[in-house]
């Protein structure tokens, strides 16, 4: 048996391994290139208070979660109770009402509860674009210096929090 006749079999093994790995990944999830970089600047009105602007500087100085949500987003409903629980534990969450009308956003929060320290209105999705958001919900974890240390695509959950986010925040807390 000469070695080169084994080439197809070896290629097959390689491919099967590749596919086995591939089956464990979600091909739709796009990791953010912003991890480890300072959060992009923005300046937007606070939901329900159009005269009051909120900027990047307001996010700096302590670890904070920035959660993009919307009233049209079904998965945000799934995530919501966990955010309420986090807020009750004293985790600071800033909400961004993404591509939504102020009225719908406010109504949604009134109905399901408001876990957010502040809610920023991003009706055009301009902040979303700068932050590389491509759907809702997405959650960014910022450290004290305002650097993005983690991005959760899709709903935050107890498990994700325990395994991915909490360890990062432990290091960041004073």
């Amino acid at each position, binding site marked *: 048996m000469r070695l080169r006749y084994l080439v197809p079999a070896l290629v097959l093994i390689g491919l099967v391994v590749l596919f086995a790995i591939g089956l464990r990944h*979600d091909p*739709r*999830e*796009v*990791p*953010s*290139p*912003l991890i480890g970089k300072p959060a992009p600047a923005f300046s937007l009105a606070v939901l329900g208070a159009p005269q009051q602007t909120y900027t990047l500087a307001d996010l700096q100085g302590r670890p904070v979660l920035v959660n993009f949500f919307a009233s*049209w*987003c*079904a*998965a945000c409903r*799934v995530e919501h109770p966990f955010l309420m629980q986090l807020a009750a534990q004293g985790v600071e969450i800033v909400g961004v009402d993404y*591509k939504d009308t102020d009225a719908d956003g406010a109504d949604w929060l009134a109905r399901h509860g408001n876990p957010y320290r502040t809610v920023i209105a991003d009706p055009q*999705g301009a902040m979303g*674009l*700068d*932050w*590389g958001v*491509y*759907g*809702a*919900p997405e959650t960014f974890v910022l450290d004290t210096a305002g650097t993005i240390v983690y991005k959760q*695509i*899709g*709903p935050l*959950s107890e498990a994700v929090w325990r395994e991915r986010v909490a360890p990062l925040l432990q290091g960041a807390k004073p």
Partner: protein
Amino acid sequence: MKRGTLKSRFAPLALLAGLLLALPGAPLRAAELDAEQQARYQTLINELRCLVCQNQTIADSNAPLAADLRQQVETQIRAGRSDAEIKRYLTDRYGDFVLYRPPFKAKTWLLWGGPFVVLLIALAVALRFVRARRAAPAATAVDAAALRQVLADEAGDDARRPPENRS
């Protein structure tokens, strides 16, 4: 399970994308771009990937995000940005994933170079195979024995082959 939640997360967008699979809604405000800018716009939006869609360019998709990105491209072209700058703007936010034309760098050299390297190897193997004909007499004893065996096999084949089909 993870898949399930992701699906529902994208339900509104995916639904929209599916709904309108067909055609970009907002037409290009062609009057505001000159012919050369138009051409650049068309080329760019046909090479940028819509992130929330199945596998579509932002030109082909009607997802709201694709509309936003088209808008961005148009605005930036009008603002005089170069194609490279516009692509940079998008990759800074979404990564190389948005580029349907993968940039040539360390992590894609295999992709761009692979086919041509394989072509060279394949051509070399084919040439060696054909050349081996002339080198055949110099074969080792073992090879020669194997060769005789093969030739004997083939003689057997030839005997079974009707001569009129040798056209």
